[in-house]
């Protein structure tokens, strides 16, 4: 270790955090020093956000010790965390679009006179903050009129307007252009020169190498190692980040699939302005084609276009025939299923019964003469799916919202299994699902593939993509970085293409 320990402003020792049976953090440690940028590096789900939420006072650590300036640090809530000198800028925006920049920056701390907000003082104070950070933003503008990137900068200004000793930036550049990112880097430079410690979270390797002083790698909720920026390479960091043996939770393919034969789905040069470009891939019957990419890489957008939710240019061939779907109804009728990313928003009708949710996409199959629903056939089919997928529910009439996350996800799967799809798109099929249900979902996916369904598996979890896929399409900023198979399927190559860094 370098520097004297008096430089340490935030010290995390042996911190653990469990949610019920699941351990999200195991013996985490971190030594953040004054005037330095400390990057936290790990895959999605490695435990970064849990750690940040503990620092922010959203969660309490299960055990371990945190000190700030040598004093024990245990904030009960975010307000206390910020009063103690910790500023967090989260990835998601928390601004009110109908208020001005000044009102947002100083929200809940507006200067007052006689109980009324003093607008003049408000504006001048906000101006000072913005000028201090060098932001090219008019504080009297409504936030709703700003670009997403500008809003991100306002969010940062809001976070930094407290007198912070430690500033946490969680993927702050994810929606910034290069020139806007420069402004942010400039701000970080100013903070450093003032002696503020910065904890930086990002997936962009070049950016990390440029900004960081120290880099800590974490994996599976555990501390791996800390490095001085000058002593480490990008390749080494990626290896540390993903370096693990494949866990035993991925069931092996049940058969040797021949890679020959006509593709079930072939996509050529699919393009949608501003979202993705020149997307070409093919998937055969029984094949699991993985899609990996970081947040914002355009994976979900491509799938929405395939499913008829959005227009896109290019050709799509399904089972040898050119198709162009103008609505999900057409896509479903031709044999495409889509397990969407957010089951609560796009997957389920939480207030309605398990039965209704399962039969929802296959409703035309349960419609008899004069449009009457064939109730007993529907109930029988729903009951069969509940049995087949081992969905734990009190009855078929229980509202879907009353079930656990894993069982809700199985209902979404059951819904699409009932449509007997030729191509099934799975977008983050195991997000927010416990390990047991994960394993069951993987088995179902394997079984579908064995029955000849072509599967597109989108995931942000590298082990999942590696463990399940025959081939992997890696996307980076709206284009395909590489399509990998066989011996190229290593965490290192996938991560390198996903972060846009190829050696």
């Amino acid at each position, binding site marked *: 270790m370098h520097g004297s320990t008096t430089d340490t402003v935030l010290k995390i020792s042996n911190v653990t955090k469990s949610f019920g049976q699941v351990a999200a953090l195991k013996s985490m440690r971190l030594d953040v020093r004054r005037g330095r940028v400390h990057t936290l590096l790990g895959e999605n789900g490695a435990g970064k956000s849990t750690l940040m939420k503990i620092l922010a006072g959203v969660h309490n650590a299960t055990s371990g010790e945190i000190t700030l300036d040598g004093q024990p640090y245990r904030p009960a809530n975010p307000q206390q965390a910020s009063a103690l000198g910790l500023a967090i800028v989260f990835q998601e925006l928390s601004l009110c679009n109908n208020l001005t920049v000044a009102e947002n920056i100083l929200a809940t701390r507006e200067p007052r006179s006689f109980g009324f907000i003093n607008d003049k003082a408000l504006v001048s104070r906000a101006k000072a903050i913005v000028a201090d950070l060098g932001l090219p933003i008019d504080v009297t503008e409504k936030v709703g009129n700003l670009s997403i990137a500008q809003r991100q900068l306002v969010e940062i200004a809001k976070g930094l307007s407290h007198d912070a000793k430690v500033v946490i930036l969680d993927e702050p550049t994810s929606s910034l252009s290069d020139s806007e990112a420069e402004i942010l880097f400039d701000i970080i430079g100013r903070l450093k020169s003032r002696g503020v410690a910065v904890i930086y979270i990002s997936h962009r390797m070049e950016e990390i190498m440029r900004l960081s002083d120290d880099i800590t790698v974490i994996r599976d909720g555990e501390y791996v190692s800390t490095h001085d920026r000058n002593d480490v390479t990008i390749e080494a960091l990626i290896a540390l980040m993903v370096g693990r043996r494949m866990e035993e939770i991925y069931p092996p393919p049940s058969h040797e699939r021949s890679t020959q034969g006509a593709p079930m789905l072939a996509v050529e040069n699919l393009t949608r302005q501003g979202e993705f470009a020149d997307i070409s891939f093919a998937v055969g019957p029984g094949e699991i084609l993985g899609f990996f990419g970081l947040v914002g890489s355009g994976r979900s957008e491509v799938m929405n276009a395939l*499913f008829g*939710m959005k227009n896109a240019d290019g050709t799509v061939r399904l089972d040898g025939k050119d198709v162009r779907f103008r*609505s*999900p*109804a057409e*896509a*479903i*009728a031709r044999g495409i299923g*889509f397990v*969407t990313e957010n089951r609560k*928003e*796009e*997957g*389920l*009708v*939480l*207030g*309605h019964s398990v039965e*209704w949710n399962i039969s*929802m*996409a296959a*409703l*035309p199959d*349960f*419609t008899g003469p*004069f*449009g*009457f*629903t064939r*109730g007993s056939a529907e109930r029988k089919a729903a009951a069969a799916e509940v049995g087949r997928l081992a969905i734990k529910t009190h009855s078929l009439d229980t509202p879907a919202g009353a079930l656990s996350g894993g069982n809700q996800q199985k209902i979404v799967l059951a*819904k699409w299994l009932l449509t007997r799809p030729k191509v099934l798109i799975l977008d983050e099929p195991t997000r927010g699902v416990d390990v047991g249900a994960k394993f069951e979902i993987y088995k179902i996916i394997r079984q579908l593939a064995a029955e000849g369904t072509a599967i597109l598996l989108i995931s942000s979890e590298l082990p999942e993509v590696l463990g399940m896929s025959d081939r992997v399409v890696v996307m980076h900023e709206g284009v395909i970085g590489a399509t990998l198979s066989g011996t190229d399927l290593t965490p290192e190559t996938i991560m390198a293409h996903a972060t846009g860094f190829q050696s």
Partner: protein
Amino acid sequence: MTQQTAAQAALVRAMKQYGGILLSLVMLCVIFSFLNPRFMSVVNFMNILQQVAVIAIAAFGMTWVILLGEIDLSVGSIIAVAGMVGAQCFAFGLGFGPALAVTILAGALMGMLNGVLTAKLLLPSFIVTVATMGIYRGLVSLPTNGAPAMIDNSTWTAIGTEGFLGLPIIIWVVAVLFVINQIVLSKTSFGRRAYLTGGNREAAIYSGIKVDRIKIIIFMISGVMAAISGVLLSSRLFSAQTNAGMSYELDAIAAAVLGGTSLAGGVGTMVGTLIGALIIGVMNNGMNMLSVPYFYQLIVKGLVILVAVWLDVRAKQAKR
């Protein structure tokens, strides 16, 4: 034995769902019969049913709309337009059948306009139907410059005044429309799609439900139901009045909401709405028989609606 338990289970479920609202209805009837002995009579109940018919039918249409998470404020105006369209058809010398067809078609078109503006231009239905409420109300006066139009077609006027198989025709119309709406809502795929769309529009779209089409059809249903209400009202009045059906949309909304239809969408039944409409009808009739002044009636009606909905919400929260 299993037959019996199944029937019992159904009864328990019905009591859970409608118990609170049925209790309100019964309590109102008891109170009114204490205050006026003539209230509890077959003749008076026939009266109530006839009076409530116009509201009930409009409320069936409103139930569909609210079920979808939308609202239709143009219902009262469509009621007036329907009467005037009928009257003008007779003025042009059309017979009963064609006049009825044209009137119902007019209702469907007005509903379709509401639906298309809401679904395709993505305008909130509240705003769309506030606007069309004014537009349709204005259209009523165009043919006669604001004067009422007499209707002398005897078949048309018979609907509101004569009987069939011992019951007023108007009650048969309500019964038939109730059964049709209830069956379509609970037994067909269309009804299911309405429930699913109202419950979660995004999920419905991703499951291949054409939510725009559902929305337009449902606004058309509301328009057609309102037009039929307009036929009944004008037949009872022997004329088309330019201010007919004024603020009936509020009674229709109240009936649907009293009956348990959720303004958030996804929840509601025609049975509930019928009970809700009966509550409104009983209150109107009971207070009229007691010669309660109109302005007191408004106050009492508002309070009863608040209390009934509050009881219902409380019962449903307790169940969770």
